[in-house]
């Protein structure tokens, strides 16, 4: 177990280093950091001094090491566009994005697994076929069109829910939350559905096909032959076995929600990190882009680690070190 964790941790660090290399290359080679920092009227000497101060005359590996060192200490540079530390800008907006991604993940997970199980168990039902057709359209729909469609229906026509922003938020000092006010909760509904819908259809199709697979296995047949109730067979035995292989994929899918939030945040003018990232791409704000990249990578790597651990906990075969052919 410990060896497994350490190996995964090592892999995670390796991925983070590669991403850091990309993000450092952005800094180093896209645009000239000196002219951005010292301004147009600086003399050649000023520039040279700056270059030395920043260590830009050092060999590449040394510079990279220094960069990684700064990152570890939480120094991510100053935004070209706003002139404030990038990390502050991101931390201010992170709660909005994380709350959105969290709600979307819950939505995608609950309905994805629910519909997946339903369509697997009631394959012949008309409602199952309707859900499957709907999911095919869902995969083809660009996220922003879903958002626009929902805004048109629920905000413009029905006027039930707000079409943009987070509503009223509560400042907890280290975190701003929209969960404590009615307008905050109402504002969450449409963006969360928009963000989660695509992942929901993917999870649903995954769960359905895996469940159909499990329902054909001998141990399910044997469970039925022992006279266990349908409930026990379906939800006690089949569901648990279904969920294990899909945990990994679901974890990755849900992790990508943070990145997909860029689109949703733009549609709903949601004051999150993705919105900030789009602005930074438009204005080529390299420190912000690089930091966002690191942040998303960290998020993915963490989720992958958690998923691996989870895997270990739910599947007893892994604990005893039995090598499994299918993994």
């Amino acid at each position, binding site marked *: 177990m410990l060896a497994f964790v350490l190996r995964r941790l090592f892999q995670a660090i390796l991925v983070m280093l590669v991403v850091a290399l990309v993000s450092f290359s952005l800094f180093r080679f896209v645009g000239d950091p000196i002219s951005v920092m010292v301004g147009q009227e600086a003399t050649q000497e000023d520039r040279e001094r700056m270059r030395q101060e920043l260590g830009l005359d050092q060999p590449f590996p040394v510079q990279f090491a220094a960069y990684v060192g700064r990152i570890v200490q939480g120094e991510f540079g100053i935004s070209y566009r706003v002139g404030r530390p990038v990390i502050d800008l991101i931390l201010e907006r992170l709660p909005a994005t994380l709350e959105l991604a969290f709600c979307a993940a819950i939505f995608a997970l609950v309905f994805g697994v629910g519909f997946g199980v339903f369509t697997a168990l009631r394959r012949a039902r008309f409602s199952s076929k309707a859900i499957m057709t709907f999911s095919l359209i869902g995969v083809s729909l660009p996220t922003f069109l879903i958002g626009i469609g929902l805004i048109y229906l629920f905000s413009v026509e029905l006027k039930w829910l707000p079409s943009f922003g987070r509503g009223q938020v509560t400042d907890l000092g280290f975190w701003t939350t929209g969960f404590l006010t009615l307008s905050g909760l109402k504002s969450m509904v449409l963006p969360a559905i928009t963000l989660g819908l695509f992942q929901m259809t993917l999870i649903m199709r995954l769960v359905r096909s895996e469940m159909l697979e499990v329902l054909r296995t001998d141990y399910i047949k044997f469970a039925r*032959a022992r006279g266990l109730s349908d409930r026990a067979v379906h939800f006690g035995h089949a569901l648990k076995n279904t969920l294990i292989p899909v945990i990994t994929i679901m974890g990755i899918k849900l992790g990508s929600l943070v990145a997909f939030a860029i689109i949703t945040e733009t549609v709903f003018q949601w004051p999150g990190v993705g919105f900030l990232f789009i602005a930074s791409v438009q204005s080529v704000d390299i420190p912000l882009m690089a930091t966002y990249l690191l942040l998303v990578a960290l998020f993915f790597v963490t989720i992958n680690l958690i998923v691996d651990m989870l895997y270990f906990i739910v599947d*007893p075969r892994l604990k005893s070190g039995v090598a499994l052919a299918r993994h």
Partner: protein
Amino acid sequence: MTETSEALLEVRDLVVEFPTRRGILRAVDQISFSLMPGEVLGLVGESGAGKSLTGTALIGLLEPPGRIASGTVRLKGQQINGLPPEELRKIRGRRIGMVFQDPLTSLNPLYRVGEQLIETIRTHLPLSEAEARQRAVDLLMEVGIPAAERRLDSYPHEFSGGMRQRVVIALALAAEPELVIADEPTTALDVSVQAQIIAVLKRLCREKNTAVILITHDMGVIAETADRVAVMYAGRIVEIGPVRDVIKSPRHPYTKGLMGSIPDPEAEAERLIQIPGSMPRLTHIPKGCAFNPRCGFANDQCRTERPPVRAVGKGSVACFLDEAQLTALSLEARR
């Protein structure tokens, strides 16, 4: 078949069909047999003969679109095919237990053996968690698993194949059913443990007076275990009778071939022993007797009419050949 209503299980003209694009396939075709309490019936035949489907049909576990098209299955006189699913479920495990072929895949890998036992016991018997646990320990001991108390908390993958099949047997017997259907219970196991598993099954069923339908293609197992044997070919029972009679003096040409008689210098017998060709696919079952294209004795009647099941001695056989010919055949086989 002369058994009366004291029979535990009575199957009459059972037909199992699969509707497919190319028409309806008959996988089990009008089979009849009965079973007395505590009796062990062997069901033999090549793979694809319909043995396993018969087993799953009896406990109502046919996979759709497969279905029982006609016939009756009676358990102590009560018709059980066509019962509502919930009623049928209460019979499964409680009155009819089932053991499948592959112990490696029969147990849910994610649950401890004890959990699966206790779950089964409590589904059928009004026992408390603690009582069910005690019963689970007893069951594991009965099937010969050492340190049963401790092994309760092991996962299936922590057992060897033979031990797992013992667990499967314990699960099948958990609620003391009157009948156990064992579908090739030793096929997937090492030869060295096959005999042990059969011995366990035999001992427990004798102790508890449980009847057994033993589905297998292994005549050796049948000879050692069964009281009576039914031979299936292309979905039909071609011969049924006391095990000694069927083995020593098989009456149906197919059975004779199956018993692997001593090679005979005469051409006819030679062909018979090898059984040329293979069992027909369900889509191409010949007219008349299903065995006629491979039978060395087939005549025109065999090719047009389906032979009726006739009582011969203590058993019965589905063949047109008269008793004199059959006796001659069996004499030849014994020589």
